């Protein structure tokens, strides 16, 4: 059974909503959320691990482990734990290079 949400909001919910797009699907977050919270309050994982079968959802939340990388639709790499979610953002959760023809 897929996890519907990983993170649980315990307060500060009285903030204006912002809508961003994750893999082309709309996701509603709250103003002030990091991308990590935006994605994990509405889903279970952030990305596929590169060296194992498991999916990943971040680890240190302080910019030290780099486990939480996601990408913008133009290919820029973002650390989900330290990047704020903003309205209209378009995020992809698979590494752009992994879809290059040479890796197909």
């Amino acid at each position, binding site marked *: 059974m897929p996890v519907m949400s*990983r993170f*649980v909001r*315990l307060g500060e919910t009285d903030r204006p909503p912002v809508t961003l797009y994750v893999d082309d699907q709309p996701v509603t977050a709250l103003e002030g959320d990091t991308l990590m919270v935006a994605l994990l309050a509405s889903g*279970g994982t952030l990305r596929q*691990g590169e060296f194992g079968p498991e*999916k990943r959802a*971040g*680890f240190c939340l302080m910019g030290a482990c*780099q486990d939480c990388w996601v990408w913008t639709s133009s290919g820029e790499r973002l650390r989900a734990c330290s990047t704020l979610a903003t309205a209209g953002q378009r995020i992809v959760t698979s590494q752009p290079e992994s879809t290059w023809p040479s890796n197909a």
Partner: protein
Amino acid sequence: MAEQRIIIVGAGPAGTRAAQACVAAGLQPIVLDEGRHAGGQIYRRQPDNFTRPYTKLYGTEADRAQAVHDAFDAIRDRIDYRPETLVWNIADRHVWTASGTGQTALPFDALLLCTGATDRLMPVKGWQYAGSYSLGGAQVALKSQAVSIGHRVVFMGSGPLLYLVASQYVEAGAAVAAVLDTSPFSARVKALPDLLAVPSILWNGVKLTQAIKRAGVPVHLGVTPVEILGDPDTGVNGVRFRDSGGKEQSIACDAVAMGHHLRPETQLADLARCAFAFDSHTRQWLPERDGDGRASVAGVYLAGDGARILGARSAEASGTLAALAALADLGLPVDKGVTASLRGEVATYAKFARGLATAFPWPSAQAAALPDDAVLCRCEGVSAGDLRAVMRETGAQEANRAKAFSRVGMGRCQGRYCGLAAAELIAAEAGIPVDQVGRLRGQAPVKPINIGIGDEK
């Protein structure tokens, strides 16, 4: 004469107090901060549109957090503060920074490294599953985003942070399934004389533990973690451990917050070519410094948990002390009475920290006992068995050599989270003391940076 340039890396309790001392001496230091707002990790600020009061965010340390924030805000206009700026290298007496706007190399007359700490991790089979987080990470989730890392959280590991974060979760209304501490109760008794050096912190710890138990959360001491149970797609679904009586137990959960106290972020001190020494008490390599924070390299000073884990209160004192040492070395007048009293303060916290190391020992034997199929390096998916095989095939017994052959410590986190455990595993496997394994060298860039960014004007 041009003003002497002081660069401070970090804006937590140590960096803030160091900057304050420089401003008081009439200087305008550059303060480089990876964070969006000053405060560091332990006194990390919540986003501007969040409304929880200090008492909710920082508990017993609310007044201290506020004092550090207020001190920073009061000097904000008199320092050259650069938030969201990563220091990724130190070379040729220059500090190399990267930020959204580009990169720059800054020369310095005095460099104060107040780089703080990250969690010290002991791998557990299954820790690569989604839903495993560091204890510090679990705290950041709550403190700076008001979320719990899961619907049912197990806290596993040891150290003061285990109880602090678990109690903060309980207090915030999160479901805490259990607190599993690898340290036995007897260790605390042994540590009591040192812990009494700072009775107020000791008493806070006792109160936190009582609050956790009062909330009905089971607390197990002297456990041996066996496995974090999970599924590759959906992540963590439980924890298996042996209790102090040797009986195996399982607890269902969807998140695990794990860690064994902290480790200093010493990569920049390493790149600045500071000498390191092995500290047998914490089984970590630490940059050498004199009683005031002077590193082995002239003009480089070390303060706060980035030099040695002595806690946030000590970081304030050592931050001021290191700045005063730098000012004195630059020929500025410094009040010797203040210096002496700060030294005394740091010595008291050092005694307390020794007590913590005794009460919550790093379970080095757990690394040696990791099963072959357990992931040791979660960045690169290297198992304990992979590292053992590399040792057998190549004879590698030195940390950097073993890293080159096995990729343990070569991944995204650059060995921050597996390096100490890998060294213990190598030592046990080779039958040598862990200090002989050496330490992973700091490498530039100390964190990944975007390539192709231009020079800043």
